Structures are given as structure tokens and as C-alpha cells.
């Protein structure tokens, strides 16, 4: 089974903090350490999407430069169970297309405050090129194909 990628994809309530990550990763508790000591992995890439302190104010003309307005959090709404199924199939597709060794991704549902992580993607591959290409492709398709929406919680 040397060639089967380790895949984990989940939508969870609240921010992607270390305890949420550890809990989600426990289902791959044997496969990931085995992979990491196998000598097959040449590159690991980790992306964290973090809630910023401001968001574009709605209603401005699309051509104008966005007016940023302070927020205290983002509320993420997920269309369940389709969002989970789409996140899983996206993870499988990207792993296969780019020949990855492992892919794990977690996305928040509900409220995530400024400075907290709402999205995590980690990729392991033999070489760096496919890890970088896979990460860019994954995030592009996530924003197209996974039914999750964010609503700003304005601070003012």
C-alpha cells in the first residue's frame, strides 16, 4: 500500500485551534507518523487561513477600491452534508491529480474571531513543485466548489 495517499477532510465547529486539529488528526494517528518516517516525503506545506481585522464593506461599486471596515469575527455557514462531501472529493481529486502522499484539511463552521484560524491545509509530497501546485489548485477549487459562506460580524 505504498502508493495510497493519506487523506483527511473535515468541517468542524468553531476555530481550527490546536486541540481541534489534534482531535481531527487522531483518525490518521497511525498513517501519518508512518509516512513521515518512511523517507518518501521530501516536502511538507502547511497553509493557515486566519480571520483578519477588517473586511470589504458591502455595497461599494465593484470597480472601486474596496473600503475596509473593522470586524470582530466571521460567521461561517456550511451547507451540510454537501460541504463535507465536496471537501472530501476535492481532497481525493487533488491528491490523485498531483500525486500527493498526504493531504489534510479542516474548515470552520460557525463563529471564528479575528486572529483565529478558519482553514487549514497541509500537504506532503515527494518534491516541492507538486506540493505548491496542489495547494494553489486546492484553494482555488475550494472557493468554487465547496458550499461554505462567510458573513462578517462588524465591529462598529
Amino acid at each position, binding site marked *: 500500500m505504498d502508493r495510497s495517499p493519506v487523506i483527511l477532510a473535515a468541517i468542524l465547529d468553531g476555530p481550527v485551534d490546536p486541540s481541534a486539529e489534534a482531535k481531527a488528526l487522531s483518525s490518521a494517528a497511525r498513517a501519518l507518523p508512518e509516512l513521515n518516517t518512511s523517507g518518501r516525503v521530501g516536502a511538507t506545506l502547511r497553509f493557515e487561513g486566519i480571520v483578519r481585522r477588517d473586511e470589504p464593506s458591502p455595497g461599494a461599486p465593484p470597480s472601486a477600491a474596496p473600503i475596509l471596515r473593522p470586524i470582530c469575527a466571521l460567521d461561517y*455557514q456550511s451547507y451540510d452534508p*454537501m460541504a463535507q462531501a465536496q471537501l472530501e472529493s476535492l481532497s481525493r481529486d487533488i491528491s490523485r491529480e498531483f500525486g500527493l502522499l498526504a493531504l489534510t484539511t479542516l*474548515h470552520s463552521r460557525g463563529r471564528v474571531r479575528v486572529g483565529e484560524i478558519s482553514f487549514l491545509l497541509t500537504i506532503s509530497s515527494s518534491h516541492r513543485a507538486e506540493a505548491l501546485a496542489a495547494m494553489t489548485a486546492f484553494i482555488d477549487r475550494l472557493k468554487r466548489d465547496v458550499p461554505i*459562506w*462567510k458573513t462578517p460580524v462588524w465591529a462598529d
Partner: protein
Amino acid sequence: MHLDVLVFGSIAIAAKADRVRVRLGDAPTLADVARAMAEQHPPLAFALQSPRFAVNQAFASLSTPIASTDEVALITMVGGG
């Protein structure tokens, strides 16, 4: 027939609801659903110029026939990540 279409994000804010009801003629397709939403709910027209729908939790093309028992959701302008 009548159909409730699920909406999300900025579309739900514009609709002031998480679903909108549309009246449809006989043997409607998703294209008819999109047209009816734009006509019967003008504040949502901005989101229906190139709409994308899910039927029963899977993406479906605009030619897909719709029954009143289908779960239909407008999946445009997602914003995850």
C-alpha cells in the same frame, strides 16, 4: 407548482431569509427556477446572472428537471477558506 430554494451568505442577507419560494410552470428545469427567482425576487437578480445550483446536495446543470420534492440550493459566490 411551488418550490423553496435554499440561499446562503450575501444572498440570504439580500433575501432576509434562508430560503425563497418561487412559482413555477409545468415540468420546470433549473433554468426556469433561476428565471423565476430573478423575476419574483428582484433583490436577488444580482446573484442569478450565471447561477449554479445543487439538487439534492449535488451540483446540477441548468437543464436538470425539477420536482417539487427536490432539495434545491443556489450555490453562488461561496466564500470559504
